[in-house]
């Protein structure tokens, strides 16, 4: 197909503007094409796969409730990450913070006896505290020990998994004997009330919505949010302007850790009914992808999280219908994020709109400094 070369410059500019405007869709299409190609290689019709995934996510009421039930903790974790990303922090340790939240809630469920509402309240508070403390370790390693939060976070993720395995096979193993699968189911009163036969607890939806609203307000309207924004963009200038960078790093990490811990509690108290080996199910890493894909646009986060949740749940049905492993959903989301990062800056790929281009550097996620504390102490002279 040939485009007619237009004589006027105005038309060329408009075409470029249109291309720039439509740019966010490009990586999504590219990811779909890539995944479709993968399906063809494995002898599966993409149409069949899409239909299976659609059925798995949206087909029946139970499917839709599963998607929402998966969405809630994903949303909690993503909301927390909005805070740390704003401060320029890569909270890879969120996975461990989710697991610690689940462990905290499980500890209360197994060890404390109280009427249901009080018990659940304690579970949630302990879960949030556990997640926040796990994040505090990462923050202290960074501010005191100059260990980058990615490495600290990864190490604490591993420790969280090891701790879970120890608890499941040791002190908290079911009475009928140890297995590596999980603890005995918690008493009913310790679990979040579920909607009919699903794994969805309506109460948890409220947590996610309140958390998201709070974070939007905090980041837009509070002094704390502004400090985090400044810190994320230029830690040293912010320090000189009077922002106590260490304190804000600790607070941002703990805030995120608390929400992640709440997410872990939701996983263990509604999705499951006990502490399981893979309690998080990779929700933390998925949340990182969600926030990266949203690229600082907070309002996109709930929708992207919902889409990811649908794709991942649809992947399970896909496995039942075809020979393909359910990880196809994971592949699709992962590839999508890769393409988004790759295509995030149309200017780098030579598509420019002279009116819009400024020379103030690349967009946000690309421009995220890997170490906002690269220049912690002034070198002087």
């Amino acid at each position: 197909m040939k485009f007619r070369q237009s004589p006027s410059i105005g038309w060329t500019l408009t075409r470029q503007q249109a291309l720039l405007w439509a740019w966010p869709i490009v990586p999504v299409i590219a990811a779909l094409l890539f995944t479709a190609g993968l399906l063809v290689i494995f002898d599966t019709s993409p149409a069949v796969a899409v239909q299976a995934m659609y059925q798995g996510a949206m087909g029946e009421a139970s499917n839709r409730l599963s998607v929402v039930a998966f969405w809630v903790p994903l949303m909690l974790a993503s909301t927390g990450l909005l805070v740390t990303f704003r401060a320029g922090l890569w909270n890879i340790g969120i996975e461990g913070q989710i697991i610690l939240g689940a462990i905290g809630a499980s500890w209360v469920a197994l060890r404390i006896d109280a009427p249901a509402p009080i018990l659940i309240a304690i579970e949630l508070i302990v879960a949030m505290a556990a997640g926040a403390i796990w994040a505090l370790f990462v923050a202290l390693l960074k501010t005191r020990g100059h260990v980058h939060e990615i490495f600290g976070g990864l190490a604490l993720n591993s420790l969280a998994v090891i701790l879970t395995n120890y608890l499941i096979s040791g002190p908290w193993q079911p009475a009928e004997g140890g297995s590596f699968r999980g603890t005995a189911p918690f008493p009913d009163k310790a679990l979040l009330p579920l909607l009919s036969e699903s794994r969805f607890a309506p109460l948890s939806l409220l947590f996610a919505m309140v958390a998201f609203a709070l974070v939007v307000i905090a980041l837009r309207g509070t002094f704390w949010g502004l400090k985090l924004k400044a810190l994320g963009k230029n830690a040293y200038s912010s320090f000189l302007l009077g922002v106590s960078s260490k304190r804000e790093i600790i607070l941002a990490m703990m805030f995120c850790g608390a929400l992640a811990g709440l997410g872990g509690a939701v996983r263990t108290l509604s999705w499951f009914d006990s502490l399981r080996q893979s309690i998080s199910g990779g929700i933390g890493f998925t949340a990182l992808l969600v926030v990266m894909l949203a690229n600082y646009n907070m309002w996109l986060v709930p929708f992207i999280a919902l889409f990811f949740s649908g794709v991942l749940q649809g992947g399970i049905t896909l496995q039942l219908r075809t020979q393909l492993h359910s990880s196809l959903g994971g592949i699709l989301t992962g590839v999508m994020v890769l393409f988004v990062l790759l295509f995030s800056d149309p200017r780098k790929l030579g598509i420019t709109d002279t009116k819009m281009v400024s020379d103030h550097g690349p967009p946000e996620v690309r421009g995220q400094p890997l170490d906002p504390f690269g220049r912690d102490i002034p070198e002087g002279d």
Partner: protein
Amino acid sequence: MRVELQRICKHFGPVKANDGISLLLEEGKIYGLLGENGAGKSTLMKILSGYQPPDSGEILVDGQPVLFDSPATALTSGVGMLYQDPLDMPPFRVIDNYLLGRDNRLPLNYKKAAAELQDLSTRYDFEINVNAFVDTLSMGERQQLELVRQLAGGAEVLILDEPTTGISAEQQKLLFDSMRKLAQEEGKTLILVSHKLDEIQELCTHAFILRQGQLVGESEVPCLNENLVRMMFGQVPAKSERPYFELGEPVLEVENLNAGDYRLKIEDINLSVQAGEVFGLAGLEGSGQRRLIQACAGLIQPNSGRIKLAGEDISGWSYHRRQSAGVAYVAAGRLEEGLVDDLSLTEHLVLAQPEHSFLIDWDGARQEMERRIAHYQIVGRPDSTAGELSGGNQQRLLFALLDSPLKLLLFEHPTRGLDVRSTNYIWDLFYQRREQGTAILFLSADLDEIIERSDRIAVFSGGRMSRIVSANETSVDELGHLIGGQQ
């Protein structure tokens, strides 16, 4: 080997770093290259050593034009350079560094290399342990290693950029002896880039003087220091007439201050700045004046000594504590250290204000910023980002963000890169602060500015502070001598 530079030009944006420089370097001589910061010395030497290409102009080696596209090709043609910071790899051993970029075969011939290295170092009386790790060596030893490496690589012309910075007197003597030997006995050409007049006088046979990207003079050395200073800094301007201003009590007192690390230490600093006084710090970049300002701001901790603010010992206070006690610090890099590129002016104002409510009153902040934009004549809107402003307007913004009143204002290069109008405006703002009793301590690379604007002046050279001179009684000439380390 005879090297000729012909009409070398190099621009960085609007700045002419090298503006048609031609010079001739002959065998067996030691040349000195003199000039202020920004005179174009480093640019010229980087061009000669293949680190960067000139915009125009030619390099001739023994009459043949050559094109150096990297330091490696320059070295194959016989031009080597020792950088101020040695380009070695500290976690490696001496022998590994020596082989790096020289022996491209597999496996490496360590035995032969060690013998070579040993041989070369004994020739110049260097003592290098080939198996030592580079990070255990002193600055001087690392320099010796680098020198030997360049010689082994076939350097006939050697450029040494400020080689005596950070090395001991003994090592300096060893270095100078080896340089003389290289020139007189082996016929090599050496270029010493330095701002220390004594070194040039002691070692060199010939000096080139650069100013503002041009070769403004050359001279056989030794010669009168006077002549060199005049060429380096240009004609001595008339002394300024400063309006009399009644100074108040001492606000800042620095007593026996020692600070810094192995790269640069400032030692035994004593000074006091009174309320309403403007105190200027001169010196070439990297001489310690910035360390003093940062020590006063609380950004580096003193190793010993005391800093007092209005009589109170604040030596152990953090930057933020000093900030709330009325100390303000404005760094040289406006967008790197002071402003946040992507934040709006209003957001900056909210961050910089000492009092905060939990929820930001955006409307109020925007109105206040409007007011300050008008007052400080900033060309910009409350919603403009700091990065969109011009340099002069960024400087005005930094002023607009300062608290009022201030006890002490620490300022680095207040007018660097600003045009005359902005410069005068910035100084008017300083004078307003002075009327309020703020003590002002600033550093600048512009000697005229320092003399014209300060009450008193101190000069830094190699981490040491000179005697304090009164601006009314000094001249660019005198400061030039002090910058060169002469008392």
